[in-house]
């Protein structure tokens, strides 16, 4: 029993950090799309700019894809760990496992 | 011409039998076929005797009887009432009625009872 909660903590920790990344991503994306144009508009207006733009765009698409994949896996892992803990604590935890991290979600924005 | 008997009965055939039987004895009889408006018919006609069926549509005989007994006009309130019942629970019905006759009845019993009550 002692090592199981450790596992839970780890899975949930990873999930939370990925959640942080998901929140920061739009800010990073917005800065990456806006700042260079304010800084060096003329250099970004032609062929080089097209390279920069479409490169950035592809990176963003990959980042969203990777983030969703990682978050879905982490969420599944947390749920598995939690149900394992709930089983090991059987009698008092007979109720359905509580939704994790609820409070965090609610005040996130 | 004063009315002898007002009958409140919804069964047409029974009413017709009673009308025939008592009519041959010379009583003047009028029929009201429904519980609704029964009390108004009594007030209007002021009969000497009321023959009242217990099971009536819309208003039961017991209700009509209770209302009649509580009428402000003492003469009307004390009109004799003969209650007809098909259910056999004569005791309850008899409380305020002057006489109770259970269905089915012998015609002679009806004639005797009516004559006794009107004379």
């Amino acid at each position, binding site marked *: 029993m002692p090592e199981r909660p450790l596992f839970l903590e780890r899975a949930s920790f990873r999930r939370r950090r990925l959640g942080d990344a998901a929140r920061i991503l739009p800010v990073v994306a917005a800065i990456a*799309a806006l700042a260079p144009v304010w800084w060096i508009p003329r250099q970004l207006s*032609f062929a080089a*700019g097209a390279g920069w733009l479409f490169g950035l765009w592809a990176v963003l698409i990959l980042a969203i894809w990777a983030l969703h994949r990682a978050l879905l896996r982490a969420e599944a892992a947390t749920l598995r760990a939690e149900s394992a803990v709930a089983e090991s604590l059987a009698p008092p935890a007979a109720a359905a496992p509580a939704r994790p991290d609820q409070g965090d979600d609610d005040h996130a924005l | 011409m004063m009315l002898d008997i007002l009958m409140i009965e919804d069964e047409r055939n029974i009413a017709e039998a009673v009308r025939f039987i008592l009519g041959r004895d010379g009583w003047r009889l009028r029929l009201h076929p429904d519980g609704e408006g029964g009390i108004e018919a009594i007030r209007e006609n002021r009969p000497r005797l009321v023959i009242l069926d217990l099971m009536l*549509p819309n208003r039961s005989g017991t209700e009509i009887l209770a209302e009649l007994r509580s009428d402000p006009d003492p003469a009307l309130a004390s009109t004799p009432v003969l209650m007809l019942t*098909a259910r*056999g629970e004569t005791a309850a019905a008899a409380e305020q009625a002057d006489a109770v006759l*259970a269905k089915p009845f012998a*015609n002679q019993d009806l004639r005797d009872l009516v004559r006794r009550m009107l004379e």
Partner: protein
Amino acid sequence: MPFETLVAGCLAYVVLMFGVAFAADRAAARGRVRWLDHPLIYTLSLSVYCSAWTFYGAVGYASRSGLEFVTIYLGPTIVFTAAWWGLRRLVRVARMHHVTSIADLISARFGKSNPLAALVTLIAVIAATPYIALQLQSVRLSFEVFATESPTGAAMNGATGGTGLWVAAGLALFTILFGTRNLAADERHHGVVTAIALEALVKLLAFLALGVFVVWGLADGPADMMSRIARAGRDPAVADGWVLRPDRWTALIVVSAAAILTLPRMFQVMVVEAADEERLHVAGWAFPAYLFAMSLFVLPIAVMGRELLPAGSNPDLYVLTLPAAAGQNMLAFLVFLGGFSAATSMVVVCAIALATMISNHWIVPGWLALRRRPAREDTEDLRGFVLNARRLAILAVVAAGWVYHEASGGAAALAAMGLVAFTGMAQVLPAMLGGLLWRGANRRGAYAGVGVGFALWLGLIFMPSVGIGHPPVLPSGVDPLAFSIFSSLTVNTLAFIGVSIFGFPDPVERLQGLSFVSAVEPIRYSRTTRGEDRAEPLLAMTRRVWGADSALRYFQAEAAAQGKTGYLPDLTPNFLTRLERRLAGSIGAATAHAMIDRVAGGVALTVSDLLQVADEAHRAKEEAQRLENATNELARTATQLREANDKLTALSVQKDAFLSQISHELRTPMTSVRAFSEILMTPDLSEEERARFAGIIHDEAARLTRLLDDLLDLSVLESGRAQLNVSASNLHDLISRALQAASATRSERVFTVDRDMPSEHVAVITDADRLLQVLINVISNSRKYCDSSRPVLKIRVRQPAAGGAAIDIIDNGSGIDGSRQKLIFEKFARLNDPARAGGAGLGLAICREIMAALGGEIDYLPGQDGAAFRITVPRRPPSGAVPTQEDAVP
């Protein structure tokens, strides 16, 4: 390419779209939604964002302003980087509240206020009309490209002026056919979405094919292309327009990011048509990838068009003229279909979204307000009204686009018209985001923000775009469009926040605010209901909105969840809250709220109630949930026990009453028999009198016999020893025979019989005589008791999914009031009419026993504007119900 071939190909494509939509709707109706539900279909449907403006206009935009065109796609991409925590929550909250449109979302969040929704609808309509005109114009222009090229086409060139009208009419037809099938506006339009997904593929393939042709066919691959772009940049005539301007760049990214959230058509496909928020896991990256693919070749096409085509060619049409000039007819046709797809899919979805908003927030509330007085009596079919209102709105929206197109002459550059719509709807964004993220946001703030933003947009952007007034005069170096966008959005946001801070929301608004911001189920609030008898009017009202079947099914399920039998659940706050949200999915939050209040009683909500529930919800959400489950279970059990107990008590009373009733029913005919037989014994009667009295005796004896038959019948049925003569029979014949037989009852009354003959031809394996007996009984009852001056008997046969048939027999009399509905199937339960109709009051009791023996049911349907019975017959009788011969003989 001959113009006729083009027209024929285009028509074939249209037929294909109708076919796909029809097939998808059919598949969905049969429950085969698995592939329709795929996240990729959802992703592709999001591509209505890429309208004709994108398809044709992006290249024109790029050739005028270089890379600036990318802003229109970069904004949505940035929004989609927030798919995980932002868009998923938006979809979750919207689905939770059965939101039907962007206007409905705003209205639901800010205290279910309809005027606010009406205001948002107004902005949407004003912004969308030129945008729809733009789509029609693009189709007309693309037709003209082909028409001017071929000799026969040139002759028909004059005729292409009518193209706009034909396209508009076709689109309105498609939208009405597939967009107004179901009433619940929050339900999905599988046909439309599937057709649009297919169109999205055509768009993408056409554009990619053109891009590949341009880069590898016209130029010598990517390296050559890059050097051509660089060369174009060195041309001073080009370079001036191409240099990026940071203020415009930022403003356009902000506006396009806002547009993906607030444009009615985007809200429709992204939020309303989403089954759940999980599909955003795929759409989150796949939709930006789609946008990426759509814009990858824009700049190369623009550069090549500029190089190869004669000066003065319209850059908005490079995508068509470039392959046509190179002699690539098939490619040009594919591109034409792509552009056609882009234009049509935008118009269809936009018309559906706007029509929902117009009917839910303008027409229906206005109509309900007009006839507020006779609200109690309104029996008309609201469902039909709402659907027709929506159809009318679709026609109006498309027609307005066409009128605008004709009136404006279609001169403006494509990009300008698209931006006008984007900036208009962006004015809704502060209220929308504020409503979702900030509990302090309130209705007055929303009015102020949206109102001010709307006014500024009208003055600064919309009016100048249609040629009224001028764009703001600004010092040189400040871009008018960027200035207009920033100033309107800033003032809008400040007004929204400022007024919100000083306002105080009412309780309903605070509850909705809590639910939206925390993404928790809306909290049930107590309403003072005026007792149990409101359930039936509520059912009647719901039936008017949904139709009888859905309403009955929903009420029955809710009653079953409470552990009750029948169709009328208790009006618990839980039930009312759920019902209101479901209704909101059909007619919008504000109207649903008002209608439920009118029928079920007003909101009794104080601030302390509010704090209490809010507190409970916030601090002990999980504990409350667990307790609630247990409590619900207990409540259900208690209800069941109470019903069982009531039934037992009632049974004992019934037994006594039954005996007393039998006595009465036997004695009454017996009285006449005895009295008249005694009379007949007297000698002095005329022949005529004798005959009459004998007749009476005969009738009364027959009545006695009937009564005894009925009693015997009942006792055989009740003991389960009834013998069934099972055979296959057609319900249509049985119903006809029953109507014939029942017409003897009160034959002087003329009944209008409303039947749906084709649906009646259902074969059932049952005891035809017994079923006939039930039908005759129910129909005769209607003939006896229906008190309408123009009686109508409606008979409907349905085939439930479980097999068998359900026969509804409904008259238009005053029906049976709630308290008696449970009694009518009891023995001797004649209503206020003892003996008048000749029966002993055993008819329905026998019917119930017969139906039980046949393995079916007979029920009273409440809330149908008259007495209504549903007779349910199974496909075949239960196997144990056919006893052996010996058993059947008593």
